[in-house]
C-alpha cells in the first residue's frame, strides 16, 4: 500500500500490525490510524502517517541538544534511568562527542551502589581523556554530585556529566534519592543541572511510558536518550511519551563503541518504525 491514498480495512490491519510490532502500543496505534483515516486525502496514507508521527515527535520545541559553544559554564548534565538502560556507556560516548566538539569534559560517578560502577565510569573517562570525580562505594550520591560540581567550577570544566545508579521508577526511596541529587546540584550552582537526560532502552515495551511519567514527576527531564537502536527493537513507545509528556528525544545510542551516539533523527526513527 505504499502509493495508495485510500486503504482497505485489511490494509489498515496490516498498518496496525506494523505499528504494534514496533512497540507503538494499542492506544497510540489506534489514535495514529484514526488521524490517518481522517487526514488530507490528497496525500498517500503512508505519507499522512509519517507526517502525524513527525508532528508528535516535534511536540517540544527544545528538540535539539546543544553540544558546543556553551555560555553558562560549567554545564552540569545529570543522567538518570532504570537499571541497565545504558547510562554509564552513554556518558562515555557523550563525553567523547562533547570533547570532539571542543569542550573540556568531566565525568562524575554518583552511582555509589552497584558493584564496579565507579571503576566502569573511570575506565571510560580514561578512554575519552575526560576528568573524573569518584568516591568510595557506599558514599552519598548527593555529596559526590556536590563535590563534582565544586571541582568542575574550580577546574574550568566546560561540561560535567553526572552518572547515577540505575533505579526502578516505582521505588519511592530511589526517586527521593534522585530528587536529593538534583536539588543538591541546584543549590550548589544556580541554573544547574542545565540538562537532565532520561536514558530509555529501545527494547523496552509499554513500561517506558511509566518510566518517563514517574521520572519526570520526580525531577524535570529536559531530554531523552534512546539506546540500543542498533538492535531490532524500534522504540515506538516514544510516540506515546512525546504525545503525553512532550519530552524530546535528543540522542540515539546505536552501539557499544565510543562513537556509537548520534543526534536523534526523527525522520530516520519514523522510517525505522514503518520498516
Amino acid at each position: 500500500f505504499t502509493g495508495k491514498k485510500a486503504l482497505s480495512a485489511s490494509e489498515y490491519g496490516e498498518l496496525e500490525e506494523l505499528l504494534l510490532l514496533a512497540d507503538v502500543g494499542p492506544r497510540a496505534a489506534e489514535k495514529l490510524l484514526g488521524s490517518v483515516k481522517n487526514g488530507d486525502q490528497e496525500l498517500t496514507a503512508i505519507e499522512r502517517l509519517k507526517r502525524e508521527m513527525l508532528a508528535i515527535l516535534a511536540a517540544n520545541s527544545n528538540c535539539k541538544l546543544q553540544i558546543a559553544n556553551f555560555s553558562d559554564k560549567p554545564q552540569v548534565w545529570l543522567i538518570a534511568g532504570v537499571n541497565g538502560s545504558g547510562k554509564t556507556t552513554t556518558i562515555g560516548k557523550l563525553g567523547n562527542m562533547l570533547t570532539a566538539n571542543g569542550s573540556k569534559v568531566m565525568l562524575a560517578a554518583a552511582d555509589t551502589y552497584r558493584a564496579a560502577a565507579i571503576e566502569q565510569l573511570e575506565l571510560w573517562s580514561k578512554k575519552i581523556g575526560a576528568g573524573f570525580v569518584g568516591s568510595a562505594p557506599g558514599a552519598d550520591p548527593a555529596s559526590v554530585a556536590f563535590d563534582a560540581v565544586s571541582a568542575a567550577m574550580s577546574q574550568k570544566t566546560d561540561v560535567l556529566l553526572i552518572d547515577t545508579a540505575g533505579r526502578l521508577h516505582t521505588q519511592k526511596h530511589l526517586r527521593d534519592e534522585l530528587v536529593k541529587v538534583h536539588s543538591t546540584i541546584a543549590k550548589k550552582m544556580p541554573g544547574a543541572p542545565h540538562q537532565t537526560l532520561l536514558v530509555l532502552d529501545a527494547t523496552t515495551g509499554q513500561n517506558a511510558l511509566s518510566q518517563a511519567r514517574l521520572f519526570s514527576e520526580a525531577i524535570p527531564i529536559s531530554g531523552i536518550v534512546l539506546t540500543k537502536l542498533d538492535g531490532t527493537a524500534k522504540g515506538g513507545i516514544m510516540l506515546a511519551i512525546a504525545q503525553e509528556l512532550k519530552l524530546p528525544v535528543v540522542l540515539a545510542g546505536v552501539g557499544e563503541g565510543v562513537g556509537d551516539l548520534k543526534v536523534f533523527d526523527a525522520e530516520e526513527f519514523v522510517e525505522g518504525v514503518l520498516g
Partner: protein
Amino acid sequence: SLTEKFTGLFKDLSGQGKLSEANIKEASARVRRALLEADVNYKVVKDFAAAVEARALGEDVLTSITPGQKFVKIVYDQMVETLGSVNQPLALSPQPPTVIMVCGLQGSGKTTTCAKLAKHLSKPGRRIMLAAADIYRPAAVQQLEILSKQVGCDFFKLDSTDVAQICQEAKQEAVKKLIDVLILDTAGRLHIDTEMMAELERVQKTVKPQEILLVVDGMTGQDAVNIATEFSKALPLSGVIMTKLDGDARGGAALSLKVISGQPIKFIGVGEKLSALEEFHPSRVASRILG
C-alpha cells in the same frame, strides 16, 4: 482488574438479551488489547485470543449463569497452561561440575543473575564457582569478582581474548577444585550480531553446559520474539530467566519467550540484592500479565 472488566462487559451484553458468538468475539478483542498493553507479542496474542475464543465457545460460556467469571477463568487457565503449568527447576548433573551458561542482551541483568544463582545454589558442602567470560565491558570482570566475594563462592578469570578458551579453562579449574556448579557469565550481545552469536556457539560446543539460560529484561516489548527466536536457533537453550520484575512492567514478554523458545522460565529477578531471585510460578506471572 480483568475480572471486573469482563464481569461488567458480559453483564452489559446479557442485559441486551441472550449472549451470542459475537459477544465472545468482542470479549476476546478486549483480551487482545489487554495483552498488547502488557507487552505480549502481537502474533502470540493473535494465537492466544483465538484459543480463548474457541475454548469459550466449547465450554458454554454463553449458557453460563456467570459468563464474565467463566470467561476470565478460561483466559487465566489458558495463560497458566501456556506459561508452563508448573515450576521447572535447574538440572544439576550427578557428575560435577554442572555447568550453567548465562547469556542474553546488553544490560538484561546477567552478571547480577549469575551471582544470584550462585547464592541460590549455595548450601553447606556444595562448591560454586563464578567465571567471568565478559572480556569486553569495562570493569565487567571486577563486577563479577566483587559479587563472588559477596556470595562467598569461588571465582575464575583469565587474561585472554578467546572466550571459549576462558570457559574451557574455567571448567578445567572447576574439575580440579571439586566445584559442584560452575556458572559462566557472558557478555551482553545483540541476537543479530553474527560474530558474537558465533562466540556463544563456540562456548557451547567447547564446554557443553547442562543448562543454557537466556536472561531477558522483564520490561522487554515486542522484540522478545526476535530475541527468543535467534537465541534458540543458535543454542540449545534449557531455560529463561526474566529480570527486573520488581517494577510495574506487566511481563508479557514471558509468554513470547515460552512459546517461541519452547523452554521453561525457571526464575524471575525481583531486585538488585543477591537474594532477589524467585522460582518462576506460572500462576503468579499469569495474574501479573492479566493485570
